[in-house]
Structure formats: C-alpha cells, structure tokens
C-alpha cells in the first residue's frame, strides 16, 4: 500500500455484512473499552452485533454496511482495528463524516453504494478508482461516484502521513 502508487488496485473478496448506523466508537475502538489493545479489539470487533464476526473475517475481506457506518465521534483507532482484522475495504450506503476521513487518512479504501442487494458471503469486486462495485455471483453491478484523484492519491500512498512524507508540498492530483 505504500510507495509511489498513484492509484488503488481493484479488490475481489468475501463480504461480511453489517447493518445501519454501526458506531465504530462502540464496536471497534477503545473508546468504551478503555486500555484494550488494537489486537484485542480486532479479535472482538462488532461481536455485540454479530457474535464471532471478527473470527469469520479473513485477510483481504470486505465489510459491507448500511447507512452511516462509523457515526458518532469515531476514533481514528477504529480504522487501525479494521486494518488489524485484515479488512481491505468498506462499502456502505453512507459513512459517518469522521469515519470517512479517518479511512482515507489511514489508507483504507471506501465506497458509497446502494448495498440492499449485497449479502453476507457474497464475493464482491470493489474498484474505487474506476467507480464500480459488483457481485458477479448475483449479477449485481453498480457505478458509484469515483473517488476524486486527490483522495485516491492519499489512499494509494497508504494514508495522509505517508503521503505527506512523499509530498510535503501537498502536490495532490487535481480533479
């Protein structure tokens, strides 16, 4: 994910489905689990919503959620936990505003899409650079707003801090 990549490669992986308004503060960070390590959280993330959720996630898998994934104050650590779980992308109907930033700032690809036809266990294709989400098994395919080049550049660099190390002058591609 680091280096001089300028675009974000397509992902093909298994879907783990969550519902609407999942608060990453509550289910995926130490905000209400004081003193817990990222590794501990990665083993217990979302278990109050779905027992055994974290154990089912394999490296490279994708979380698909409903509306406002990551609402509330949403700590940056939630993205670190998703990373530690091996999650390669999150697709949701919509995101909490701060989760959206935290994902991009930490190099996690995200996409906003109508998720009503995407089911747990589906094999999903996520191409944030081309703006396409598909589930070949069910024939579902959707065009989604392409992430702006500037956002793709941040994700491709592995996040905001690695990006700034390479480009302290903020030389972002323009739309």
């Amino acid at each position, binding site marked *: 994910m680091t280096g001089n990549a300028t675009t974000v490669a397509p992902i093909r992986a298994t879907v783990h489905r969550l519902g609407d*308004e999942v608060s990453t503060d509550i289910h995926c960070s130490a905000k*209400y689990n*004081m003193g817990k390590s990222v590794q501990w959280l990665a083993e217990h993330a979302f278990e109050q919503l779905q027992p055994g959720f974290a154990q089912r996630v394999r490296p490279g898998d994708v979380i698909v959620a409903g509306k*406002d994934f990551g*609402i*509330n*104050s949403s*700590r*940056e*650590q939630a993205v670190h936990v998703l990373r530690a779980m091996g999650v390669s992308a999150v697709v949701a109907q*919509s*995101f*909490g*505003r*701060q989760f*959206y*930033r*935290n994902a991009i*700032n*930490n190099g996690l690809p995200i996409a906003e899409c109508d998720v009503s036809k995407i089911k747990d266990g589906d094999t999903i294709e996520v191409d944030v650079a081309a703006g396409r989400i598909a589930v070949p098994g069910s024939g579902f395919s959707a065009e989604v707003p392409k992430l*702006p080049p*500037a*956002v793709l550049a*941040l994700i491709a660099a592995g*996040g*905001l*801090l690695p990006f*700034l*190390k390479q480009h*302290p002058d*903020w030389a*972002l591609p323009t*739309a």
Partner: protein
Amino acid sequence: MGHTLAEKILGARSGGAPVNAGDVVVARVDFAMVHDARAANALKAVATLGFDELPNAARTAFVLDHFSPPPSREAANVHADMREFCERTGAVIYDVGDGICHQVLPENGHFTAGDLVVGTDTHSTTYGAFNAYGTGHEGTDVAAILATGRTWFRVPETLRVELTGRLGPGVWAKDVTLAMLGRLGAEGANFKVIEYTGSAVAAMAIDDRMTLSNHAAELGAEAAILECDDKTVAWLAAHGAQAPRPVVADADARYADRFTIDATTLAPKVAHNHDIGDVVDVSALAGQPVHVGLIGTCTNGRLDDIRQAASMLKGRKIAKGVRLVVTPASRAIYLAAMREGLFEILTEAGASVDAAGCGTCVGITHKLMSADRERVISSANRNFKGRLGNPESEILIASSATVAASALTGRVTDPREFAFDIRSAA
C-alpha cells in the same frame, strides 16, 4: 449559481474562488486545537511524520480539559507530554482549570469571522457561532496542519434552517437543537453543514448562539455556521480577535435542503430513552423524579447558563436528596460568575461548583456517579447508556433552565413555572 458559507470559506482558504459541494480541496487552516483525550494520538501522528519544523505550532492550542484534574497516572502522563510539546514547539497551552477547548479558543481571540478552524473534537462546530468554519478532525489531520498549515476537505452539502419569530422566556438554543434532533434524528445531518439564520438567531446572545453551533455535532454536522452581525463583531473585538472577515451566503446558493422552524411556538424539550434523537416536550415527562442535575459542558456551561440557574435558585433550596453540580466552561466564566455573586446563590441553594473544564460531562473522570435506577438531568449533549459511568442510570438532556427547575422540585419541571428573565442581563 451562488455559494453557501462553507463553499465560500473553504474556497477562500484553498485558492480563492468559491468551491462546490463534493469537491475535494486542500485548505489553509487558520487555527487548530488538540485536547488531552486525543493528544496521545495526535502527538504519535506528529512523531510518525517526523518533520523538523512545525510552522503552524504557534497557531495550535493544546487544551487540558477532559482530564481536569487528571484522574489517573496515564492521564497525568499525557498532560506532561502535552506541556513538554508546547514548551518545545511554541504551541499554545491551556492547562488544567483554564476551561473547555471550545470556550477558551474564542475567549482568547484565536480566530475570527471567516476563519477555518480544526480541532480534535466533534464539538469544534462551536466556532461556527462566530461565522467561522469550525470542524472536528482526528489526530492525523492536526499533525498535517501542524506540519504544513493545511489539510484536505470534501466540501459538504449545506442544510439551511431559518428560525423565525423569537424564543419565548424559558426557551433556549438548547431547545432549538433538541427540536432539530427530534425532527432529523441523531446524526440526521451527517456530513452536512448547517446554516442557521432568521430573527430568532439574530435575537440570541452569543452564549446561546454558541450552544446552537456546538450542539449541531449531535446532528452529525460537519459545521454549523451562523451569520456575522454587530453582536458577533463586538464580541470578537472584546476578546482580542483579528478583524472579522464576515462571509455571507448567496441568495441563489444551492442547498441540500432548507426549512423553517417557528421559534415562537417552541416549548422546552427533553431527550430521553438514551437517545439524543428521542425528544419530547418537557410536559411529556413532567413529574418524573430526578436525582442528579448537571449544568455545564461545552454545550451549556456558559455565563448565561449559570445566570439562568442562579435567577431560579435565588432564595430557594434544591429538593432533598438531589445533587446539583455546576461546572463553568472556562476560568473566565468561573471568575465572572464569582464576581456576579452567582456561586454564592447556587451554593446557598444546595448546589456544588466544580473547577472549569469538561467536568462531569463524560464518565471518564468518574467525578459524579449516579446510583442504579437514578435519573440524571443534564445540560450536556449526549445521553447514551453509560455516558456518565453507570449504565443502570437514566440520563435526560435539557437546557440549563430545565435542569435548574427540575433540581428545585426533584422532578422533571418546565422552567417556565419559575418567573425569570435573564435576557436583559445578557
């Protein structure tokens, strides 16, 4: 096509011309803030970046407010790291007891109308009360701002709300926001900027306007920006801010939605059921017993809140068994309330006064634990289960006036039952 306040401020800070909702821009940030609960993360990000120079340090404040005073060794160590960082880099520091970040930034003139302000806290929307774009980001963003003076933004859509008429006595900006939460639900304006306008906003004192912008965080707002008027300009000047650069939305700006709320008919509101979006008129809960009252926090810990409470508690006693805690939002407010004799009135009435800071807003300091099956009525902003440390205790959210009235009777009480009007004093 015209532009919203957010499109104009982000445009001015990223090249000059107004930008459009959906654009991604890199914008120059006028002032940044890091508080103690997020400082460890922010300082780690600064270290990861590893830049020799932090040219924006002098325009960044570190505020020791959440753990104030620190309840644990870990919190005290974070404070020590923050002091060391500020000493080394020239960043501004507000130490224990100076007050809550969202109060000390405007009080110390750190930004002005037209500015872009980023803090590591959701309620950084407060700065919108001064016609500035104030928003909450995480430590990584503030590290970028410290090192480069800039960060990126996805320009949000805007919701325009006109508050017509005028709030009646005993009804406050808190009740307006609770009405908004009842209408849109918690996070119902996720990622949007809210522009509040209209005669009821114009009539509000600055303290109440700050509540309006602050509490928009519970609506999920990216910012809540008010217009700049004579009151704004006078307040900024009195607090040593740079000359304001007022920003005005265009009449033909494009909004995601717009609607009107008639302020004149609004009644005091209460959020209950551990859901800030579950809002009813105070009459619906009137008579329910309350055991703990909190007046304070960045939402309602300002001088006008303390004046409201004092005007109602003067010469009276709070109900037997009720604990009422008042936490001024800043040292300046603490001093002003003391000089006005408000603390004498409150203390005689049976309340206790806490040092300035976040105080009892959040359970992390374990400063005021309520018992199982007790009901807390608080002027704070959040009431999810366990916010104050005991998940077996119910939390109601209401205005300071409603909290004071309820502490007096020991039951949820409409503040309009007590004749008072502090607006003339405000």
